[in-house]
């Protein structure tokens, strides 16, 4: 039932599963994301979603919904949860766990440095 679009696999680099070294990437100014929304970034071969909650918390996860590849950056966010825009699966942004289904999203550490979003891949 759950399947990402094949192109999304390739973009997310899931074909090879060697554990890459962690490294930090600057995604640019926070202002790009309006308060309470998310935006998608293509970085190092994968597409990630960064969410800027109204309370100031930042979250980063893979953008591709494990259900059917919905773009999570387009979802509704609040209270540490994102709702996928396609079929409303919900994910806990702290852990990546799907609420009600036994799947999870990959999450990435993210923080603000001089007004810019820095994510650790």
């Amino acid at each position, binding site marked *: 039932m759950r*399947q990402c679009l094949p192109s999304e696999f390739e973009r997310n680099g899931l074909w090879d599963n*060697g*554990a890459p070294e962690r490294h930090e990437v600057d995604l640019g100014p926070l202002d790009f994301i*309006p308060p309470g929304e998310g*935006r998608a970034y*293509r970085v190092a071969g994968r597409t990630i979603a960064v969410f800027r909650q*109204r309370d100031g918390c930042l979250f980063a996860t893979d953008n591709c919904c494990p259900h059917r590849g919905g773009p999570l950056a387009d979802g509704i966010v609040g209270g540490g949860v994102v709702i996928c825009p396609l079929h409303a699966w*919900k994910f806990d942004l702290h852990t990546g766990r799907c609420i*009600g289904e036994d799947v999870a999203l990959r999450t990435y550490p993210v923080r603000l440095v001089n007004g810019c979003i820095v994510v650790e891949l």
Partner: protein
Amino acid sequence: MSPRQRERLVVIGNGMAGARLVEEVLQRDAHRFAITMFGAEPYGNYNRILLSHVLNGSHRREEIFLNPLPWYAAHGITLHVGVKALYIDRARRVVVGKPLHRSAVPYALDGCDHAAAPIEAPYDRVVIATGSRPFVPPMDGMGKPGTFLFRTLDDCEHIAAYAKHCRKATVIGGGLLGLEAARGLLALGVEVTVLEALPQLMAAQLDAEAAAMLKATIERLGIRVLLQAVTTRILGEERVTGVQLQDGMILETDMLVVSAGIRPIVEIARDSGLAVERGIVCDDQMRTSDPDIFAVGECAQHRGVVYGLVDPIWDQVKTVADVLTGVKPDAVYRGSKLATTLKVLGVELVSLGTTTPVQAGDEVVVYREPSRGVYKKMLVRDNKLVGAILLGETETAGVLTQMFMLETPVPARRADLLFGTASGAPVLSVFDLPEHAQICNCNGVPKGRIKEAIQVGKCRSVAQVGAHTKAGTGCGSCKSLIAQLLEVYAGEVTEDPSEHYYVPGVPLTKPQLIAAIKEKKLKSVSAVFRELAGGKEDADSKAGLASLLKSIWPQEYEDERDARFINDRVHANIQRDGTFSVVPRIYGGVTSPAELRRIADVAEKYQVRMVKITGGQRIDLLGVKKEDLPAIWRDLGMPSGHAYTKAFRTCKSCVGTDFCRYGLGDSIALAQKIERRFQGIEAPHKLKLATAGCPRNCSEAYVKDLGAVAIEGGQWEIYLGGAAGSTVRKGDLLCTVKTHEEVLTYMGRFIQYYRENAKYMERSYSFVARLGIERLRAVLVEDREGICARLDAEIEAAVAAYRDPWATEAAHPISASQFAGPVQIDSTRAEEGM
């Protein structure tokens, strides 16, 4: 524990057994093992038993995935996709594999890219779950184009693609899989012949009499069946053109699918020095001859038996997971009972256990009705069911299967088991089954999980239970039991007060919420969370609150865009692949050559993937990138059709008096006035209207949220709460009026009343049915509550406040990134060209 200190578990084979084993292990202890998997197929794990549904086109490939690739990453599992494990180096304690060539068949004996570097995975424990490969009986010519085996998703897609260009197909093998393949091919529109070497079909599951009846049933579907037909040669130079049988007979065919049984894949065990007979020899804990190496699934041999169905696998993997994680170090597997269902559309067949008496004293109960192809047989030993066949009618299959699996004593009146009780009372009450009793044998779902899906997950239909738990989505024979569970438990659900809240995150009913919002003058969604929900934001409540606030404060509402669903942030409807659709407004369905030309130009300029006439009398441009939306709107120069939001959508019309010989009223002019007036007005749910020039109702006005139908005498009837979507309902007649202006007034009044009083996402068909047309007439026509003047003024204000979002936001986006697609970031290690 850091990954380094964890024990290393390597699983060879990423099919139904391998992936399920890993799930069971994680369930027991998510942190104990660092898990590495080798999977020869280039996918995550999918439900192999649904392949025949993919073949016949009833399921899309993505619908049968159980663990898609991201699942592995999300659980920290290293999956070597498309890599075949070659041997276990037991001295060095590593599993060694090599990638397969892209085009290699995963179950072939070879196919590895030998030039590639070996992939090594060190282990503490190994589980082999390599499954089996199709058996090919000796015959010349196998492998030429047009010959297929039927085991993997790729096989299935190759067969379906090739069949498109074929007239005739032949299936070798009249067993379960052969017949499923044959039925799938039939659905693809080819003539199908099944060749079976034995004197009967499904020899493993049926007695001769049932098999003969099954043959007749299969032939009635249009599939030809030849028994005792042994193929010796496949004919054809470049591709298959026919087959030759042992008796010399030649059969023309354009393609050939061989499904003549399976053989366990054991070479990895053999090459690693493990004991192998028919399968990999295992003890009662599924340990091979090396105590650190286990085997499960179709590759394993337990007490001399090699299984070919999924149900035994669920028991095997549970045992191994218990042992590996130490949850039950002495768990044992004692073998399984077999239940088989033929998943062939048009044939109902379930077979359990033994089908012919073996011991003296075995009691045989048989019912036969050849004219309807019904045959039912039961074998009872010591008052327990030891075998059964149900052909043609399988209503009692669920109950029989439970009695067979759980070894419960059968009722004295045996007939109850074959036909149900005379009184209609259940033969076996699902209520009495233990929580762990497995209801769905295909997906291994116990009663407890289904009960939970009903009580906690609020599932109300067999399909919903299936979506929630996978139960009933395999062979389907347990659906009657799921229905019984629904009956038993759905009634028991205690009411949850939050059901009456307008949105889940704010503990107030709609009237309470409106009162509080007005009293505290809350103008934004975040203000509502702050003041009425203790500061706790709730994603599920945002869109509903936004809709409500907008209708309470048409002018002063503080529009926080993050509270809107994506469609309402970018004014287009999101599609399955993340692109959007654009439906411009075409008032009353009337367009012009110039407008059509502009639409055509836009479609070409932006390479729109499809241009389609909608069911709402307008034109849809589908598959548009978010980034292109503002430019498309600008180039179209047409207002938004709001085909994406909870608002007034359209007003369809028939041609009416302008052209139609029956027309009684000018339906087009009325539709256009309605659409100009109410376009884009937000509501609890969408509003779709229509006007018809006479009661022939060509524009379906009787079944729209609001409809106006012209009748004799220059009058218009106004209908409310019609529907022809997932619910079909004829609208209720509110009143009959004379002029277009009166129609507009009553419609506006109703729309405002609906905006104020309906629940969020309540369509007019539920709202009108809930209140009753008499009550609505009293309020909206007779003005019993004295609110008509206010309703008229409020809707007028909403109309006046309306701005076309396309025109305004194409020129002035709300934020710089409102329409941005994924942003490309060049990191130092960014991959080429991405």
